[in-house]
């Protein structure tokens, strides 16, 4: 066979030049999580180039932040990553407390760990269910939402809302937990433990699921760091980084005394390999399967944290610390803090100028950077792989477009 150099004239007759087609996947598309438009350049079934177009859900929350006091902006943080609103509130509250050098009481600290880890479980459940939908199986989605409903009921008891809570605020939380809440939370965790094995059996070890995800969309370690990916996407590529352990001392102080391991593959092994299924042979570190598996491990990890938080919270005698006043004077200066949200590192930056209204508010979203990798991952894959890859990044458009 002659050596087929690109500009070899004979190549024309050999290579039937099929013209490439530009296809719009989205913005109204069942498998883009929210309003994302992916322009695919396809050559038959092979996708040669992908370009995400975002901005359909842009509300310029940062501009509004320049007209409201930090406590008034809390409801806007709910709408950033609406699947993990508690973590968003926590991130903003911690940033403002960092600027104002305000320390929260022990009880509030444990309450925050308890609530944010519970919200991580519900966010990962949505991620897992939606990913099953992207790959064509509908049932796991409903199993995941059945469990998430129970968590939402707990949140509803705590703060009255099921999706946009505005519960964790600057200086603590808006209200203390109702009596009996801890027992109900404990009961939920007890019945949730065996269900995790169901999810593993249904998806993680399912032969077709492995075929559709193992070795697809491999994100190399260097590229993950360079594109600023974070959270399960980064840990799925083997980078041992978790803001709850490596972050600012104000944030890691919150997890002081909690025992947990970062869910990342070190030397080819995941921590605490007891009941988890083994990694399939085709799975390459950094592919969709690993990202999915890291999320499943984090659900178990968060359950442990919630149990520890319940004991510590119950052991705190003093009442919950009062949140700061609505219009508290902000010191001059700026502060930036990244917290470990379920989707990745969620950064908030606030610039104070002495008045209660911040001068500049900035939200650095994890899905924004996670999504920017799509054009690298989807190069040369099949059309059916694009939803698999975008689904594995677990993006939320509210957070990306702000």
């Amino acid at each position, binding site marked *: 066979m002659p050596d087929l150099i690109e500009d070899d004239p004979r190549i024309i007759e050999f290579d039937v030049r099929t013209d490439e087609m530009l296809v719009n996947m989205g913005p109204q598309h069942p498998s883009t999580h929210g309003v994302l438009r992916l322009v695919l350049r396809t050559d038959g079934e092979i996708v040669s180039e992908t370009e995400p177009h975002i901005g359909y859900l842009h509300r*310029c929350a940062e501009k509004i932040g320049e007209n409201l006091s930090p406590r008034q902006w809390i409801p806007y943080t709910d709408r950033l990553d609406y699947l993990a609103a508690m973590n968003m509130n926590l991130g903003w509250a911690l940033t403002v407390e960092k600027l104002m050098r305000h320390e929260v009481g022990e009880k509030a600290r444990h309450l925050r760990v308890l609530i944010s880890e519970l919200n991580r479980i519900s966010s990962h459940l949505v991620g897992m269910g939606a990913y099953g939908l992207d790959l064509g199986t509908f049932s796991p989605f409903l199993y995941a939402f059945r469990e998430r409903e129970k968590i939402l009921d707990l949140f509803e008891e705590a703060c009255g809302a099921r999706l946009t809570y505005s519960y964790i605020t600057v200086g603590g939380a808006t209200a203390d937990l109702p009596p009996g809440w801890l027992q109900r939370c404990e009961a939920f965790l007890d019945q949730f433990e065996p269900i995790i094995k169901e999810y593993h059996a249904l998806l993680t070890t399912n032969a077709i699921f492995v075929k559709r995800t193992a070795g697809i969309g491999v994100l190399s370690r260097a590229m993950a760091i*360079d594109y600023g990916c974070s959270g399960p996407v980064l840990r799925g590529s083997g980078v041992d980084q978790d803001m709850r352990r490596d972050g600012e001392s104000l944030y890691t102080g919150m997890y002081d005394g909690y025992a947990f391991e970062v869910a990342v593959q070190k030397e080819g092994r995941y921590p605490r390999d007891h009941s988890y299924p083994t990694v399939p042979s085709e799975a390459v570190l950094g592919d969709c399967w690993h990202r999915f598996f890291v999320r499943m491990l984090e659900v178990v990890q968060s359950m442990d944290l919630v149990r520890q938080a319940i004991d510590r919270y119950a052991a705190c005698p003093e009442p919950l610390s009062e949140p700061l006043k609505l219009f508290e004077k902000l010191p001059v*200066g*700026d502060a930036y803090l990244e917290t470990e949200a379920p989707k990745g590192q969620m950064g908030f930056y606030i610039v104070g100028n002495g008045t209660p209204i911040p001068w500049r508010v900035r939200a650095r979203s994890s899905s924004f950077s996670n999504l920017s990798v799509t054009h690298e991952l989807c190069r040369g894959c099949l059309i059916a792989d694009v939803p698999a890859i975008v689904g594995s990044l677990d993006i939320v458009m509210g957070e990306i477009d702000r």
Partner: protein
Amino acid sequence: MKGPGFLESIEAAFPGAVVGSQLEALDPWIEIAPARIAEVCQWLKSRGEPRFDSLQCVTAVDWLETDPKKAAKVSWQPHLEMVYHLWSTSARATLVLKVKLPRWSGDVAGHLPEIPSVAGVWRTADWHEREVYDLSGVSFSGHPDLRRILCPEDWVGYPLRKDYEMPTEYHGIRCR
């Protein structure tokens, strides 16, 4: 080699690049001359100790007091401030770089201030800088694909500027 020695190492590597610094602030930061930001970032990423291999966030803060009464009492001149938050995965250390830019290049309203792009250093800067260009109106020279990312392509104005006026209608849709 963290701590005060770090600042000296940068000044040694790039004499005249470090314009100012503030070590006592909540997040200590260094101010870099606008023209040298790209080289400093490249050095920080590949040769500095510790390696800052991850850019967390790029922000533009518009220092302009629109209210004339307050403007009189204010100590700073109206300017645009670029804030880069860097992160080292190996040493788990943060670093904040600041760059002062004129609000409009040559003080002619409409001409965007120029700053070298760091998209070549960290790929994540590509999208971050596009967002800063889109919302705060800073043009990055050397950026591979400088287009608006959040607002529609043909949107006029830069929303996060303090003196931004929302257009009354956009393609027949009433905005205000």
